[in-house]
């Protein structure tokens, strides 16, 4: 693998990380803490929305983020031919 390709692979990985971590930050610190009051004006069933993000929603999204990252990286590993076996 050439150093250039290696750098490209790492850059693509970092791009994924930035996007996913922005979502990670947004659903917990953003919706769950900083913006909780305005969001609580909206209701999701019996849940005020901000409260829901803090006690339920952020956790579901965390799970989704990890699986999305794993799937993206598997594809990237194949594209750059660096996957194991």
């Amino acid at each position, binding site marked *: 693998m050439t150093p250039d390709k290696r750098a490209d692979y*790492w850059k693509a990985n970092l791009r994924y990380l930035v996007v996913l971590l922005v979502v990670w930050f947004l659903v917990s610190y953003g919706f769950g803490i900083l913006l909780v009051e305005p969001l609580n004006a909206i209701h999701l*069933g*019996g849940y*005020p929305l901000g409260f829901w993000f803090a*006690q339920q929603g952020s*956790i579901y999204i965390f799970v989704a983020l*990890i699986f999305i990252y*794993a799937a993206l990286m598997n594809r990237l*590993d194949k594209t750059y031919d660096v996957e194991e076996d």
Partner: protein
Amino acid sequence: MTELELWSYGIVGATFALYIGIALWSRAGSTREFYVAGGGVHPVANGMATAADWMSAASFISMAGMIAFGGYGGSVFLMGWTGGYVLLALLLAPYLRKFGKFTVPEFIGDRYYSNGARVVAVICLILASVTYVIGQMTGVGVAFSRFLGVSYEWGIAVGMGIVAIYAILGGMKGITYTQIAQYVVLILAYTIPAIFISLTLTGNPIPQLGLGGDYVGDGAGVSLLARLDQVVTDLGFKQYTTQVMGSKLNMFAYTLSLMIGTAGLPHVIIRFFTVPKVRDARYSAGWALVFIAILYTTAPAVGAMARLNLMETIQTGPVGDPQGNLVYDERPDWFKRWETTGLLKFKDWNGDGRIQYYSDGGLAEAKLKLADAKSKNTGIEAAEKAVAAAETKHSATKFAGYGWQGNEMVTVNNDIMVLANPEIAGLPAWVIALVVAGGLAAALSTAAGLLLAISSAISHDLLKGVFMPTITEKNELLAGRLSMIAAILLAGYLGLNPPGFAAGTVALAFGLAASSLFPVIIMGIFFKRLNKEGAIAGMITGIMVTLFYVFQHKGIFFVKGTEFLMPELGMGANWFFGITPEAFGAVGALANFLIAAIVSALTAPPPEHIQHLVEDVRIPRGAGVAVAH
């Protein structure tokens, strides 16, 4: 023996027999099996073991109660203790798996080409893990003494004995397969009562939906949370869905500390060394969080529902109606049972024979302090002043007009919310027994993981890595087992003689992991330029800053009376932007990052081969990369 004790002995005995059976089947024959279970654990199985490893006595027994009384503020535990897995899966686990060694200090020692860095990492690891294991040991002792009629000391001895059998024989291999069994026990024990209580209160068997559903108790069609908000605010408590913990900045810092602490706890990280491939490490973290999320999304439902149940049990009619409060002599059986443990305490301030449970602005507390001062015959005057001030404040509230003279539920322990939940919901004895077995499974699985992290740091990092590099594999395995025995004895000793800081241990463990290990691991992967000097300076700064703030508030090594807050220098309680010591790990981590970066920039870059090592770690394929060098 009561029916409950019979069930408890039966179910706890059966689960212990299962753990020992697994231990005998999964003996470790090599150091690779002892440290990383041979590296062949399926990612889903590892996810389940990680979940049990991670979810401690605190998660299982205390968290729902902290949410029940903290309301929205309790969200910091939910987000903090799950969000760390995103960091772990995206930033740490795959790279550390690729690195392919046995322990966290080993990575730090190799990456920063320094035995010094490795030893500092071992010290940080041992500090964080030992403080954490004390909490598990006391949890085991408490579970035994409350439910099985066994003394606290014997409870700890039995718990240690069980862990010893499978951890010494099987090392990581034995621990992994036991943890899988323990996960199944603890998750059943947690969800079954939750399903019943959700069904009773909301008609929905799924607690996560029930929490957002309608309350069916009075047929008025209001949502459960709206009902709870109404009930608690009527009694002067803060509104459930909006009450914050400290300030929003504190919640922010607290959540961040718990997240990076989670990602930096060595006993969690080493679980990802046990899967066969980098790809598996990524998925395995996802599976771990799935299994954790089942409990963590149920916990807020348990907390809210148990709180509502408790309030309505005591406040039976309209607030202010003389008939509206439960008559003490007619209290339910579970109430009596928990009174004997001291977790619930009643004091009839106004002598009406009924229970008033409300927020009195600190009046009851002041009265109790006065009684205490009188019995000790010191500080009576100050205590009397405090009572008078509280009386004045209280007399302006509507409660004084009802003839109430202070909150009469003088103790309502957090832990009661999970432990008494099945009884409050009227569930059969076997469900309660299952909760006991679940609490023990949570405590034992976490203790075993921590003990392995400690013993491998001693035998692999200190002995093999630094002091006896020529030790044979057979002797290293023996050393691993011996240090496991030593770690178990130490944990047992500290469980029997908690050094007065058992309550603060979890916060401290997280603060230490967050401020010392996490930053240097992350930078080791993502910041090639970071060198030995920077890493060591960073770790030491991070841990010192955190220890300073925690000790300043809670005493040096938590010894009472050695607190050294200095209000005259602007260092009063929570002086740093109102951040509590529990939440300070985030600040320590920030200091670690900064100092490490600055010191690195001022000193020589790491040698060529280290830069190659980092390049290697970043790419999953092993063989191809090695040839390229």
